[in-house]
């Protein structure tokens, strides 16, 4: 059993939180101005970082707050990507409208898949979501119009409709990525500050207790499942707009869109808004250093995820928060200022 009394004087905690908030603000401003200072390669990296931040925020909302451990989120990344390509190429929808439309359709598809997956509990729910993602992958490979197993490319003139020059296109795309990252954080933050937040925090801390005080846990969880599917689909659409090519293997990759995302959330701190931000920094720092190690890099990531679970399953930010009572993005709940100790 861990005791979570803040060990620092409240004043000092407040000062550190303020400094971190300031830092976060500065980073946000710097990111907003990235096209001014960053080179092309850096901009690309930042787009990837921001996309993963959005995916991680969504997985965290799903697993960390709603207790729905999905290992099939690649279903919605891939679906968003394919729907975006289909809308843009066959329905003639302008690219910038095709993205939100693809997200909306992804959320709609999540209604029946959620209805099916919610018949399974716990770890079996996790595997069920994976089966659904596999169904999507295998089906995509059967659709000839979308290139079947070998995939399809976005025609150059369509890409040009975004902006004439390559540089300008990348700036537009960067701002989409920036918006995705920012909106994902704000969405979770605002959701937790709303009346939904109380329900979600209650579900995170104890589902039976939440039910006992009248939270319709199943309904809340289902809506969160559909919401995260939609946003995940949006990110998926963007990822493949940036790649300009989509294949079933890349679109529905469990490693890229779920395993890495879980790693980010878990190492950063599941069930906190700050966790995915820290996790995404750790993940990309590790990748820059160790990606050349190939299989050993992936083995190391698996080992780190296991180690986090054995040492402190709250992850980096979860441990910091419990020890010092820090919160960069306070959700305005008393519960959050002094989180209840959870028996291990």
């Amino acid at each position, binding site marked *: 059993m861990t005791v979570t009394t803040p060990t620092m004087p409240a004043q000092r905690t407040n000062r550190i939180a303020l400094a971190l908030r300031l830092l976060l603000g500065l980073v946000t401003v710097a990111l907003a101005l990235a096209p001014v200072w960053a080179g092309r390669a850096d901009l690309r990296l930042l787009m990837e970082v921001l996309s993963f931040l959005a995916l991680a925020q969504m997985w965290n909302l799903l697993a960390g707050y709603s207790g729905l451990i999905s290992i099939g989120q690649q279903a919605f990344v891939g679906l968003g990507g394919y729907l975006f390509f289909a809308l843009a190429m066959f329905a003639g929808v302008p690219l910038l409208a095709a993205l939100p439309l693809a997200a909306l359709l992804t959320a709609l598809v999540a209604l029946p898949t959620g209805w099916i997956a919610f018949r399974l509990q716990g*770890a079996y729910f996790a595997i069920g979501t994976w*089966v659904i993602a596999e169904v999507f992958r295998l089906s995509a490979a059967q659709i000839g119009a979308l290139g079947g197993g070998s995939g399809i490319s976005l025609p150059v003139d369509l890409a040009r409709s975004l902006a004439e020059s390559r540089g300008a296109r990348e700036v537009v795309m960067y701002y989409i990525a920036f918006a995705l990252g920012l909106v994902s954080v704000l969405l979770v933050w605002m959701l937790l500050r709303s009346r939904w937040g109380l329900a979600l925090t209650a579900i995170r801390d104890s589902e039976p207790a939440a039910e006992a005080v009248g939270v319709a846990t199943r309904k809340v969880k289902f809506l969160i499942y559909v919401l995260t599917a939609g946003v995940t689909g949006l990110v998926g659409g963007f990822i493949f707009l940036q790649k300009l090519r989509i294949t079933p293997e890349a679109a529905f990759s469990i490693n890229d869109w779920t395993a890495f995302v879980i790693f980010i959330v878990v190492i950063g701190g599941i069930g906190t808004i700050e966790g995915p931000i820290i996790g995404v920094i750790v993940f990309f720092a590790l990748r820059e250093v160790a990606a050349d190690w190939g299989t050993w890099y*992936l083995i190391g990531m698996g080992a780190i995820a296991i180690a986090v679970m054995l040492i402190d399953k709250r992850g980096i930010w979860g441990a910091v928060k419990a020890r010092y009572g820090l919160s960069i993005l306070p959700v305005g709940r008393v519960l959050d200022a002094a989180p209840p100790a959870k028996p291990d």
Partner: protein
Amino acid sequence: MVWVNAIVQGVLLGGLYALFAAGLSLMFGVMRFVNLAHGDFIVTAAYLMLALVTGFGIHPAFAVLFVLMALASAGYLNQRILLNRVLGADLLPPVLVTFGLSIIIQNALLEVFSADSRRLNAGWLDTASFRLSEDISIGALPLLMFVAAVGVIAAMQFIFYRTALGRMLRATSDDPEIVPLMGGNNAHIFAIATLIASVVVGIAGIFLAMKTNFDPAAGPARLLFAFEAVIIGGLGSLWGTLLGGVILGVAQTIGAQIDAGYQILAGHLVFLAILVARPRGLLPKM
């Protein structure tokens, strides 16, 4: 006639899927634990068998014995050292630890055996067959697989319902908190359950090595087949798991008969359809 043949072959293939699933079913039954690296353990057993027979030239009979002993001890130790520490009400640690294990195993296999697809030559077992009619013949290997599946499930059923060990396993499944008051050590009982499951995983891996091509990334698909067989059959029912394996096998061979690309997809779709129609499976027990 091709359809009858597809069904016959599907039933036999279902034996392999039941072997994949039996260990998963047992571990869930005793400790409500789902090992996401289950398929990767099956593939590891297949590689171990392959390495012993083709790499070291060990007689297959000894190799089988060695694989099963290695899996049994690895299973027991894995449960005692690692998995027991993450059992509990919180779902996240067991899911993440076994997901992490899955990634580690796949990449370790890749490092040792390369990404090439491999298969174990089963000699006469590969070619021998019994002719039932003009169009239908049963291969010796698929038949052996099916017989092994029935044998394994009958043996598990016997252990579970007719022995003191099985009594203890069922008691632990019911109420682990008070089992120590009966002199049972939960950590040891859980590890014994995993040991039994791991022996079945070893058997499944040996058959996988002979039946199809496999590569280091083949584990997750095996996990999904195993999971589907368990859910179709109904949680907690071992004979249900055999039935689930057979239904999945038949769905796949019929799918493949329609179009080679539909084999796996057809299995998944039948699984989802059964999940919608009978969420508790066909022979539910719990």
